[in-house]
């Protein structure tokens, strides 16, 4: 009886020590789930989800405080990916949060006064300029977040939808007409 208790407690102690040691030694830095969610998000940093950037939204989804359908730039495809990743049901966008076609900001250089307010608002440093100097958008880096539009005191920034070109063209999903039944030769049994 006593031996059994001793053996069991010894095992418990050893296992406890191993667990305690590995909890410290192999501690996971950061939140791996948030990393995975962040990798799915489109990184526009637009804040349309109500969080100040994609990373905070990913963390909010990871701890369960945010829904998966708050990211319009990610599109329905993005919601599907999040649903797959988290093992939850697909959820359509709420009213007024539908995705818009992709666009980049454009600064009307005749109107720009060089106030640098848009520079401070741009989350990805995609605006080149300095105080009292002309500002311009680096179109290849612009994520189309629209955060520069509100701060502009002279309303010189507009969003230009991206036109489809040969390099961005995508082939359509093949769709074919079904076999029309009425064209079948007479004599064959109709379906």
């Amino acid at each position, binding site marked *: 009886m006593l031996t059994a208790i001793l053996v069991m407690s010894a095992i418990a102690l050893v296992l406890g020590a191993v667990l305690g040691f590995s909890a410290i030694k192999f501690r996971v830095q950061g939140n791996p789930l948030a990393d995975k969610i962040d990798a799915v998000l*489109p990184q526009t*940093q637009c804040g349309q989800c109500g969080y100040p950037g994609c990373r905070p939204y990913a963390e909010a989804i990871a701890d369960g405080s945010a829904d998966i359908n708050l990211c319009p730039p990610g599109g329905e495809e993005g919601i599907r990916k999040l649903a797959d990743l988290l093992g939850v049901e697909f959820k359509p966008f709420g009213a007024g949060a539908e995705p818009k076609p992709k666009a980049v900001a454009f600064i009307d250089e005749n109107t720009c006064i060089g106030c640098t307010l848009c520079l401070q608002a741009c989350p990805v440093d995609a605006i080149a300029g300095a105080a009292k100097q002309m500002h311009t958008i680096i179109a290849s880096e612009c994520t189309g977040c629209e955060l520069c539009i509100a701060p502009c005191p002279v309303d010189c920034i507009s969003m230009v939808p991206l036109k489809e070109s*040969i390099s961005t063209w*995508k*082939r359509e999903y093949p769709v074919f*007409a079904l076999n029309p039944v009425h064209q079948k030769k007479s004599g064959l049994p109709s379906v």
Partner: protein
Amino acid sequence: MRTLFKFHGGVHPPTNKTQSNDKPIAPVALPSKLVIPLHQHVGNRAKPAVEVGQQVLKGQIIGMPEGRLSSAVHASTSGTVAAIDMQQVAHPSGLPDLCITLIPDGKDEWIAREPRDWRAMSHTELRHLLRDAGVVGLGGAVFPSDMKLYSHQTRIATLVLNGAECEPWITCDDLLMRERAADILQGAEIMRELLNAGEVLIGIEDNKPEAIAAMNAAVAVGKHERIEVVAVPTLYPGGGAKQLIRVLTGIEVAAGVRSTDMGVQCFNVGTAYGAWRAIAHGEPLLSRIVTVTGNVGKPQNFEVPFGMPVDELVAQAGLLPGTTGHIMGGPMMGFRLPSAQVGVIKATNCIIAMSDALFPPAPPALPCIRCTRCAEACPADLQPQELYWFSKSKNFGKAQEYHLFDCIECGACSYVCPSHIPLVQYFQFSKSEIHAREHDKQAADRARERHEYREYRIEREKQEKAERLAAKEKAALAAKTVEPLPVATNPDAAPENTAQMKIQAAIDHAREQAAAIQPKNTENLSAEQLAEIADIEARRARIRELAQSHVDQPKE
């Protein structure tokens, strides 16, 4: 007799080559205008080098190559540049691209051409010349040839010239080999020199006996050594680079491996011809042989200047009524042109006028019955039925696992499918979707990186500002100790050099003097006077503070 090998699968579609291969290559009458796209090759679009209204001569560069992977574009004839704008081009999307419109003046006047002896030129010089002459792969891939002509670390043992021309209806390489065999062989010699290759194998399908005979005769006449013309069995798609290499050498080029890593490089016979003309005659690539066939009165091969509108070209072969559209390329791998007004480009090997009699509409697709005939026909040893299911359900990850990107889109699977499923269209859809997603992913990663760097930078700036302020405060405190009325002493301010020591000595002296001279009116003061002094001191302190903040402010 060389031992030949077999590749997996393959089909035997009706060849339909006799319509157009019985007549010699014909020149074309100059068209009313030439619409020359600046992006006719793989890589970066050429940059316009002319202005609207400018007179150009035949062979003059109108598009400069931009970046490493690019190629030059030339005026196909002499004339006036009428426009540089976005126009519809020969691309399945039907989208516009930057084109130069040239109105020919009818003189066909050449720029000065400089024939060169390639044996006296360095490899780098030769490659530059090919790039400036706009020589690209004419088999259909239009990859800049200079990029493929490097002598690699893995020694190239074999240079394969592709004259197989397996696709039905097309006979342009056939006629080129029949009529200009000697020039092709000269081009092959230049390529062999650039690649440091050993033997040259010219693979020609055995349904072109005239071309094989002409090439053999040219090898004998030109006394070319280690160049062998090999008749390969007619089996579609035996003209695919990987398939032809397999048949000729037995080497199977694995997925994700380049043929050069296996010691083989492959070029189309037309490319070899173009390289020879560019170097030995100083003629840049301005035209190519195009088969015009299908629903036309006189199917034939033409030497067509690039930019010639397809409708004017087809008219010269006698377009018959009932034409429903035009295919660029062959019926297996070609695509329907978005309009007949687009210009002929370097990739245009064949134009087929379609009619309902020649190309009846495809019967409606039926469900896949899992017969796996597509897998038996696939020359890339893939499982098209699996790829079809994954593509149909947009399960792209799985499609990639099944090596979707090894598919050469030859159409053999669609050809044999008893359910008439347009399999290749599904694969093309999947490929373009995967490319687009890859592109989006890269853009997102870049945006994330930029955003994170920005946050780091803002944090760093905040920290630097705080440090600066702290340092300034410290300096201000130290400065205050100099004043006659010390607010606080700074024991840390140790003199560092003799100048500072002198200053320190002077300060100490002044301080001693100040300590020695005691104010005489500070004793026996009334409460009233003391209150007044305290008041004044407070005011002074306030003013000092204000002055200090005034000094700090503009620098912030």
